[in-house]
């Protein structure tokens, strides 16, 4: 059985890593974006972002004050063994991380708006479980900012509208978001399935590193086309005008009912925080997202 203390400590470490240090693909994409901007305002905003990323790392502080609603993705290897106690350990780690890093307590009751004070609550931290081949438990901390999560859209597109209907929904969503999700963003698109699955795919897409295309060439082409279109809007960094509105677009799909075409859009901000590690059956731990 997995050592609960090990999981708790790892949850704290992953939340710290995620909050303070952006993954290298994100940093690289932001630096590249800086080189592609021509207006003073766009450049100034990207300079502020890059300077902020450096300061966060050197001062060991969260890169953004909105340290997000706490979300984890867990891939359980079939040969890993029991995951009994893991949810409790992760909740404990979340509470500790809130104090130790510190994180901003963001979890509130949806109706009374009362803040729990420790980033936990009903269904929170949110745990997304999958099962994979292997003898490890892979944990990704994915704290999700409110400003970008608010820019989430869903539509039951008419199947007859086909791929043009999907594209229109995505581009209209990005345009209506404007500067609100702190562009340059990453856009996750889930197509097909049921409504809930489409949304889940859209979010899960955001875990994929920037620049990595979908394995299906048709979907990869759609991603590239959408990215080019989004970066022709002129929205730019922070919605203040410019060439780079999104760093990437990731699409995933599921088969769906012949009568429907669900499309979900989930937005990630430039502070695209994620940190991943594996715990192997023998108790060893490997950090995958950040070089250590």
């Amino acid at each position: 059985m997995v050592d609960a203390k090990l999981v708790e400590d790892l949850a704290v470490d992953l939340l710290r890593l995620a909050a303070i240090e952006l993954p290298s693909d994100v940093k690289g994409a932001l630096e590249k974006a800086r080189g592609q901007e021509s207006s003073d305002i766009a450049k100034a905003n990207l300079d502020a972002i890059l300077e902020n990323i450096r300061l966060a790392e050197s001062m060991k502080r969260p890169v953004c004050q909105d340290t997000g609603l706490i979300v984890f993705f867990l891939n359980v290897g079939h040969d890993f063994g029991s995951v009994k106690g893991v949810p409790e350990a992760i909740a404990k780690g979340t509470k500790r991380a809130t104090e130790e890093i510190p994180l901003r307590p963001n979890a509130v009751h949806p109706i009374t708006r009362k803040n729990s004070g420790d980033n936990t609550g009903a269904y929170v931290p949110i745990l997304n479980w999958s099962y994979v081949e292997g003898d490890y438990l892979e944990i990704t901390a994915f704290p999700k900012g409110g400003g970008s999560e608010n820019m989430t859209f869903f539509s039951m597109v008419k199947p007859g509208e086909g791929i043009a209907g999907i594209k229109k929904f995505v581009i209209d969503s990005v345009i209506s978001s404007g500067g609100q999700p702190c562009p340059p963003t990453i856009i996750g698109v889930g197509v097909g399935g049921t409504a809930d699955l489409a949304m889940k795919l859209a979010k899960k897409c955001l875990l994929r590193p920037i620049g990595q295309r979908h394995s299906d060439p048709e979907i990869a082409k759609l991603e590239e086309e959408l990215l080019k279109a989004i970066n022709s809007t002129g929205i730019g960094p922070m919605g203040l005008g410019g060439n780079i509105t999104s760093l990437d677009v990731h699409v995933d799909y599921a088969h769906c009912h012949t009568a429907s075409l669900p499309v979900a859009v989930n937005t990630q901000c430039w502070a695209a925080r994620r940190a991943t590690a594996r715990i192997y059956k023998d108790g060893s731990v490997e950090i995958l997202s950040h070089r250590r």
Partner: protein
Amino acid sequence: MEYRLRIPIPESDVRKLKIGDIVYVTGTMVTARDQAHRRALALHKEGKPIPIDLRGGVVFHCGPVVKKKDGGWEIVAAGPTTSTRMELFQAEFIEAFRPSIIVGKGGMGPRTAEAMKKFGAVYCDFTGGAAVLAAKAVESVRGVEWFELGIPEAMWILEVKDFGPLLVTIDSHGNSHHANVAKIVEENRPKIYSMLGITSK
């Protein structure tokens, strides 16, 4: 143009600011999000004072990350939050308390712009998420009010030095940089639709 201003900022200085200008402010500034705006306006309606005089002041749409330090507080990270949520309150708030600069991200609506024109105030964007950069300008935390609203929603009273760069995006003459960008985006929309093979309906 670049300006370095001291809080409280007289209306004559605010009226000089134009969209595209860069501003750095020094002095006492407060944070306020939805709930602090709501509370301040409720008190005002009852004829009661709020904890700090905001005339000529700077209001920052921000819920910071804070840490207890030597019996006081330290601001760890403090970037702006999305300002449109405060659109519900901002015009009335400006009329009631007469701040000179509202700082946030993403811009605000026509009601706020109208109040800014009428009462002499501007809206500035601070780069969203640039929280450590913002926190670096905070010299000390003078106090916190309405703490029971929770850390993000409480009103934090901060002493700042050269807080910025703040980009003026709504001025007191009816100009909005956000509206200008939105116009460009709208002009681009048909071109993008045709790029993607969308026959716009």
